[in-house]
């Protein structure tokens, strides 16, 4: 077993070696510009891009012409909201979204608010799920688009996108979902789920960084988005810029592998996740699982270790790459906004650790991490005055703490 262990697969994933192999020729011999229509270099590049487009489309049940390549999911999210508002803004300026979206949606929606749009922030259950009935209640005659993520990047909860899609369809409102965390892990079918716009990122599914896609529905209804990047009119005018052929090829290969291996891989990562959870919960009292267990990404485990601060725990796990919702690990000194939105108190938000198990993690690694966590929590609790007070039966909420 090699140290350090990477168990932060929601942040990014390594490229699968098969992806790298597929990409390499497009950096050397096949370096053509996919927009060069008059020579074989361009034709080869275009052919490779179109194959990748098919591979990505297949992963989500779309047709190739509905895939627009972008620089990543942040750009896809930006285009989905801003591009739709720019195109359909004359019909209304109301957006419905949730407070646990990725920052690429939250910040874009806030920016649109400052530009005169109105945003309804959906309530989130303590289980981290969006109730489709709340979407129904939030839709107004001037609502243009609803954006609710498929899988959450922190707590791993997976929303009922099909139910939300059906509601949007009924009201004639466009539906966008950020499927960055679910693509390749949970089956996605844009037709069955009634999705109009969907964001993808290659590097969260064992492809390269710097490439993503926005699915834009072409039929029933034909969805239009105004471009954010203007220029040569690439990607059917929705996203100009010379296509990074090697990255697109890598993205396509990653999508092909994900389509073929999703079922077996998700079963394997789920078994590893459950092994990790069982070991930790059996040995460590006073833990809290953040987010629904039943509706959850297979590789995600987000646990609060009460009376232990997250960053100090990360320090003990220095041979393991995981993340914490603790304020101390962020530049802002604010604990995770997602954990706060599901009603977790600040103290337990500070105590949370996110484990992200992926394709290349092994059982041996899971066992090593579990043992390390168990030992570290026990040690830090012997250091914790809060743990001592809790053991003595003192209710920490009864104490008047001096906030600083």
């Amino acid at each position, binding site marked *: 077993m090699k140290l350090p262990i990477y168990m932060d697969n929601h942040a990014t994933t390594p490229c699968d070696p098969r992806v790298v192999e597929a990409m390499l020729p497009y950096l050397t011999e096949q370096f053509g510009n996919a927009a060069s229509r008059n020579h074989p270099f361009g034709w080869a590049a275009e052919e490779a891009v179109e194959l990748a487009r098919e591979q990505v489309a297949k992963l989500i049940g779309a047709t190739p012409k509905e895939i627009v390549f972008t620089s990543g999911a942040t750009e896809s999210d930006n285009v989905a909201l801003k591009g739709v508002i720019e195109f359909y803004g004359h019909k209304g300026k109301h957006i419905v979204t949730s407070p646990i979206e990725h920052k690429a949606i939250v910040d874009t929606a806030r920016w649109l608010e400052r530009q005169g749009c109105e945003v309804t922030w959906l309530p989130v259950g303590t289980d981290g799920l969006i109730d489709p009935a709340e979407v129904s209640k939030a839709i107004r005659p001037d609502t243009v688009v609803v954006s609710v993520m498929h899988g959450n990047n922190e707590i791993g909860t997976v929303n009922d996108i099909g139910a939300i899609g059906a509601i949007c369809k009924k009201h004639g409102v466009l539906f966008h979902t950020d499927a960055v965390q679910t693509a390749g892990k949970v089956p996605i079918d844009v037709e069955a789920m009634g999705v109009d716009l969907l964001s993808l990122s290659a590097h969260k599914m064992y492809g390269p960084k710097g490439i993503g896609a926005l699915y834009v529905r072409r039929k029933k209804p034909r969805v239009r988005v105004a471009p954010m990047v203007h220029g040569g009119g690439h990607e059917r005018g929705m996203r100009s810029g010379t296509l990074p052929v090697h990255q697109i090829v890598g993205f396509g290969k990653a999508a092909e592998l994900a389509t073929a291996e999703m079922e077996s891989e998700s079963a394997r990562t789920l078994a590893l996740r459950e092994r990790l959870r069982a070991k930790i919960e059996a040995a460590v009292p006073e833990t809290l699982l953040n987010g629904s267990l039943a509706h959850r990404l297979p590789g995600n485990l987000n646990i609060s270790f009460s009376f232990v601060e997250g*960053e100090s725990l990360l*320090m003990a796990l220095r041979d393991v790459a995981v993340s914490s919702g603790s304020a101390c690990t962020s530049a802002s000194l604010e604990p995770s906004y997602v954990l706060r939105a599901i009603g977790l108190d600040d103290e337990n938000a*500070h105590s949370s650790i996110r484990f992200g198990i992926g394709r290349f993690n092994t059982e041996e690694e899971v066992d090593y991490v579990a043992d390390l966590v168990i030992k570290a929590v026990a040690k830090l609790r012997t*250091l914790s005055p*809060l743990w*001592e007070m809790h053991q003595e039966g003192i209710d920490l909420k009864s104490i008047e703490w001096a906030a600083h």
Partner: protein
Amino acid sequence: MAYSDKVIDHYENPRNVGSLDKSDANVGTGLVGAPACGDVMRLQIRVTDDGVIEDARFKTYGCGSAIASSSLVTEWVKGRTVDEALTIKNNDIAQHLALPPVKIHCSVLAEDAIRAAIEDYKRKKGLG
């Protein structure tokens, strides 16, 4: 963020962890910080009749820098008189541990803990 060797040393081998008898008239207890803010320090000192801190114990809930700051002050206050201990400043702690700017509040909290423990001791002794 990379930690300094001194922070890592105190985190891995914390000095003087534990508790002193709260009901002892010579023991002062300082509890500062708040769980919601991500750090709570408890510093206890036992003072001899001639005003010298003969023992100190701590427990801390917080990041590595908070644990290191409180571990360090238990070493620093031991053997000092109460008045000498009050001259320990957060800057000294931050400098010694090479804390980055974002962790300065940990050293401030450690200084607060010293003051709170001494105040508690003085109150018990009717010196406040």
